[in-house]
């Protein structure tokens, strides 16, 4: 593919999209959807399955007070961490572009990344049935921030197979929030979960907000 000698350290001044990855000049605006889920649950697989470009990686530098990072009680220090996130793109029409962002691996960074959830149409929570507590926390955070979401259950052969109703109960999930099975490797399945999110947003928009 593109192997025109980008060096790791310095800036590759010829970097840029391959010609087939270029957006039309008419692209006027973009929207984004965030894919949330624990490490290894299939976020990047999902992004790759529906993206029209090879998924890319963006990064951000996070500065954190070193609380809980080590046990040197009383010593306060700041740590700088570079956090990476994979994303993909779907051209909706000549003007509109949809970007899909997979959250970084470590959940403590999900809500620290400024602007990741702001302005997002919504989120897809990929439920990791091997680590339900991670999803439980993130669902709470999304609710708190008013980010609408749907839940996808990516079935792995080795993961415990709970009935949907039981998962919904365990997640303390509102009946109105769609919860569907998905296969993150399958393009049609990933498209369908995005459509599920859009239909859900549609009902939220068109139905009176009294049912909050």
């Amino acid at each position, binding site marked *: 593919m593109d192997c025109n000698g980008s060096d790791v350290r310095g800036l590759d001044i010829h970097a840029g999209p391959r010609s087939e990855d270029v957006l039309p000049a008419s692209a006027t605006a*973009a*929207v984004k959807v965030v894919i949330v889920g624990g490490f290894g649950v299939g976020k990047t697989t999902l992004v790759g399955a529906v993206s029209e470009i090879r998924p890319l990686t963006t990064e951000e530098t996070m500065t954190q007070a070193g609380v809980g990072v080590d046990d040197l009680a009383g010593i306060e220090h700041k740590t700088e961490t570079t956090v990476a996130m994979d994303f993909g793109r779907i051209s909706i029409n000549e003007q509109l572009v949809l970007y899909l962002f997979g959250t970084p691996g470590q959940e403590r960074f999900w809500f620290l990344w400024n602007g990741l959830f702001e302005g997002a149409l919504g989120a897809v929570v990929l439920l990791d049935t091997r680590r339900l507590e991670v999803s439980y926390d993130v669902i709470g955070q999304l609710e708190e921030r008013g980010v609408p979401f749907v839940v996808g259950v990516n079935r792995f052969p080795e993961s415990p197979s709970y009935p949907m109703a039981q998962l919904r109960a365990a997640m303390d999930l509102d009946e109105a929030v769609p919860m569907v099975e998905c296969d993150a490797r399958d393009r049609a399945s990933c498209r369908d979960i995005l459509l599920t999110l*859009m239909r859900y*947003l*549609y009902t939220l928009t068109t139905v009176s907000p009294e049912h909050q």
Partner: protein
Amino acid sequence: MNEPGPEDPSTVPGSPDRLYILTGGQARAGKKAELDLVTLIVSRTETDPGLQPEHAAIVRMCDYPLSVAEISAYLELPVSTLTLLLTELLTRNQVEARPPVPAAALPDVQLLEAVMNGLQRL
């Protein structure tokens, strides 16, 4: 071209030292453009030899619209660093920014219909 050598790291385009110097002053002054990860950036000018290599790379790349996230990925720069570089280019009118569709409390129906139509064609 820019072989890493024993030279001053602050002269190597894209090096952390250099980017710190290029963007550090502004970071402290706190004047950053309001850019989203999916704000689309489009060049308004051709690259000119007077541009810093980082700026020139952005201007060249944004011949056609590209999101902030994509530029960050191709240049392997953190989003916050890139935002500062873009702020300079915006101030000098060398690029334009096309902001994302504002997601009000809830997105509007026409937008959702457009996205659904687009997804159905996948």
